[in-house]
């Protein structure tokens, strides 16, 4: 992989990478101006669709396909919402893009708006990203001053406004309909679907919600073309007719018990082991990894020592991190591609308690199964870590984790799938450790979680 040249992160180390002038010098907005002059909106949609770009936000829905769901010949307005409510634990790839190269994202937004004929984009940014908010605001101001945003951009007849909207610090605002509700000034309770946002979204108008990294990818696809994009990543699995392939570069963030936590850009399909051992500098303090989160907490855990079926000598540690990989070992999916390493001296009980605390705190509380289920799982795991667990608690945890979520059909949004998955994968894969802890009545080493905050 030494030969791989980062594209999305190509400019982040440059001085003044966030300024319009620097971006212009690197050929920025040339693509946008060219597209504005030479291409029809439909051409852009077709190109993005053909590139096989899948949304980088977590679900991996084909981006171009989503755009085609918009009603044809709608009188407007059509909105584009950028989801920068990056709240999945261990995930910070959007943050780097926004703070270090905002214009790359903004160009993607402008291209996308041109494609879906939207004249208004809302950039929903989480409250905690103060620096990113200020950088983006400065970048947008620059664009208005340069005549690249506003009415009749460069005499093309295309009008676009981009508004930054700062959230109030809730995980659920990252769910697309929760984001829309929050944007409308309401409590961010996800909406029931259908209607999907592409039909009826923000302010009851057709709306597309895309992730920040997706926008950066759109910029690069329009700049470098589909051949470049498809040269990276993993083609569709011929055995799986529903697999759309995992093309393109991806920003992986490495966090947890590693020597060098960082964000790296790699073609899709790098293995978990490579990421940790090679790019993350290995597990810290000379320890070994016990478990890894393949893509944000909500995707569940892999057991690095569990052998992979049918593949000799390989363990779950060797799964490729593309849109299909984590699913093969019982995880929910690739998610945000943020991996979090748990070393072999950390108790899984504590890890699980931490996870449950997060999801219980972030459940919006609309649907009964999630509201009560996440709270119950927290109470049980809290008891486990205080050394008062019972063996049947593990079965209850798995039962509760199994029954909440959009996949069994018991909730409106996917938050509770994300809350259930780490619980059931942890208990199924590390049951012996949990049982031993219950038998010994081991108490947790830590007393209270320390929360760090910086806005």
């Amino acid at each position, binding site marked *: 992989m030494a030969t791989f040249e980062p594209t999305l992160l190509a400019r982040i180390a440059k001085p003044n990478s966030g300024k319009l002038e620097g971006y212009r010098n690197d050929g920025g907005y040339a693509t946008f101006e060219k597209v504005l002059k030479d291409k029809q909106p439909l051409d852009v949609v077709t190109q993005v669709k053909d590139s096989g770009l899948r949304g980088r936000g977590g679900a991996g829905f084909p981006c171009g396909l989503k755009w085609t769901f918009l009603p044809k010949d709608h009188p407007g307005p059509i909105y584009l919402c950028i989801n920068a409510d990056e709240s999945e634990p261990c995930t910070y790839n959007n943050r780097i893009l926004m703070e270090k190269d905002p214009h790359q994202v903004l160009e993607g937004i402008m291209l996308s708006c041109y494609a879906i004929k939207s004249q208004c984009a809302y950039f929903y940014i989480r409250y905690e990203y103060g620096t990113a908010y200020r950088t983006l605001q400065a970048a947008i101001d620059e664009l208005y001053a340069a005549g690249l945003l506003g009415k009749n951009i460069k005499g093309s007849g295309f009008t676009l406004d981009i508004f930054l909207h700062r959230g109030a610090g*809730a995980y659920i605002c990252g769910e697309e309909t929760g984001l829309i509700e929050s944007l409308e000034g309401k*409590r961010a*309770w996800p909406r*029931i679907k259908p209607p999907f946002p592409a039909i009826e979204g923000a302010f009851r108008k057709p709306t597309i919600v895309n992730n920040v990294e997706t926008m950066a990818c759109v910029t690069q696809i329009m700049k470098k073309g589909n051949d470049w994009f498809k040269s990276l990543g993993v083609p569709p699995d011929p055995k799986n007719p529903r697999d759309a392939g995992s093309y393109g570069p991806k920003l992986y963030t490495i966090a947890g018990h590693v020597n060098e936590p960082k964000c790296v850009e790699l073609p899709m399909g790098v293995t978990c082991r490579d990421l940790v051992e090679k790019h993350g500098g290995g597990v810290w303090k000379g320890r070994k990894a016990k478990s890894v989160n393949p893509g944000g907490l909500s995707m569940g855990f892999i057991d690095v020592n569990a052998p992979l079926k049918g593949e000799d000598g390989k363990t779950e540690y060797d799964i490729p991190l593309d849109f299909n990989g984590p699913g093969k070992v019982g995880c929910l999916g690739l998610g945000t591609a943020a991996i979090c390493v748990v070393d072999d001296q950390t108790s899984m009980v504590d890890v699980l308690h931490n996870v449950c605390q997060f999801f*219980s*705190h*972030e*459940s*919006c*509380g*609309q*649907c*009964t*199964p999630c*509201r*009560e*289920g*996440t*709270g*119950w799982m927290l*109470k*049980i795991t*809290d*008891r486990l870590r205080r050394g008062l667990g*019972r063996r*049947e608690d593990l079965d*209850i945890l798995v039962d509760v984790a199994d*029954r909440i979520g959009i*996949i*069994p*059909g*018991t*909730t*409106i949004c996917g938050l509770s799938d994300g809350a259930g998955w780490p619980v059931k994968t942890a208990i199924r894969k590390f049951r012996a450790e949990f049982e031993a802890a219950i038998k010994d009545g081991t108490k947790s080493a830590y007393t209270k979680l320390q929360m760090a905050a910086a806005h």
Partner: protein
Amino acid sequence: MPTVYVNDKPVEIGTQKLNCVQAAELAGVEVPHYCYHPGLSVVASCRMCMVETGDLKDGKVTMIPKVFPGCQTPVKDGTVIVTGDYGKHDSKVPKLPYDPAYKPGERAKKSQADTLEGLLLNHPLDCPVCDKAGECKLQDYSYQYGRSESRLVDEKNTPPNKPHLSSKITLFTDRCILCTRCVRFTREISGTAELQVVGRGHHEEIDVFPGRPLENKLSGNVVDLCPVGALGSKDFLYTQRVWYLKNTDNVCPGCSTGCSIVTDTNKDIVYRLRARTNPDAQGYFMCDEGRWGYHYTRSTDRLTRPMAKVGGTWQPANWTQLLPKLKYAVDEAVLMSPKRVAVVLSPFLTVEEAYALGSGFKKMSDQVRLVLGPVPAVGEDDHYPKDVKGNPVQPTKFTIRAEKCPNRKGVAAVLTQLQGEVIPFESLVPEFGQLSALWFAGGYPNPEWVNDAVKAPHTPPALLVVQDFFPTKLSEAATYWLPATAAFEKEGTFVNHAGLVQTFARAAKPPVETRSELQLAFDLGNRRGLANVAAVRKDVAKAMPAFANLADVKLPTTGKRLELATV
């Protein structure tokens, strides 16, 4: 004809747009639900109405391998609905060709039990001291669909109660299941939006904004809407166990909207009024004025026995001695000069009472004048929902009428039938001094309405018989003051502002010494025996074409309306 299959049973839905809950109801299958209410928007968040759905196409059933909230899932031709109650379905109905591996209803049943387990996790289970016990959906569904034991061993959340929510309503926060019906009601029907959800996850609570309590004219409905015992009416709190209450279908006498209500009584005391669904009258709700407006029936100031003025002071009388005297005095006045006899029929009387009294006097002499009693009007019609500034918003979902009587149209129709015109009370007031006899059949819950209509004191007629609850300017000048009966204490018919004819049953007996207006009409008119509402109703139907459909209609028990008559 579009057909939907509910637990194998085919149901034709016609052109209606239904969801699974409604379609199942058509098939006679109850799908339990909390957050869904036909009068409010659908949020599909309680997850109690989980059903399994699929399609029947070309003789093949394809079921979707997950559960869906029935309230949010629309049905179309060929939709197959399998509820958690599939096990109880009619086995005579032929089974649909499901996949052999598919076990109908199992998934839905489990998810309903799971939901109930979740709802009960933090519920205090204080049914013995809860007012809702006995009519609580959480109790009912837990019994029918839930598990018998809780697997929770940890401490429950105990959020504090909120009696400050409103002057009329209290919130037992820990009993709440967050169905948000109340929140949606204040946003969608009253439009006042006082209620909201605060907090997140399992620490979520219903609350008001500090300093902005739940005070609007429809607030009491949130108590009706609450499927559990979380929202309680302070008026009813801890007064009665609901299983002792007798529920009678009734019509609210508070204004000319004529809301269909249920009157809850025990031992002939009214304890509570609740709205009864009637799309033709008012919909699903009722106003607070009507809901808590029954207290006059229990007032200690209410006259409960007949009084006669002897030597300028009131003396209690007994009916057996009083009746012949009354009859003689009335007969004499009519005989001497019928033109100087007037009968006031208040708009609080039922159609039957007005007809029996009016026709009785007209039989004595055609020249006796029948007058429509004072029609109280307070302010203007009050339409809901309101916007933030308090202005009504279209479409109107509820109206509190300015006309504070239930039956002006009905009484006016009777008067028109009997004498061809409606004489308003105001035109009679200046003539009081010239009258030889005035029979005032009142029944005004608020004495001020009579006082306002009488205005300045006039020379009273020689014989003044007043039938009313409370002392008024008229009753003070009366020769005889007779007790009246409230709408809950009689059977009858009201005609609302739109001409909707609703009959209702008697919920409570009037106080012992109180003789109903209809009985008095019988006694005065030489009709023997106990007053018979059905007989009078038949007379009304025969005499008045507008009420023709009253004759063969039984009293509604399910809140079904009668044919709309144009009055």
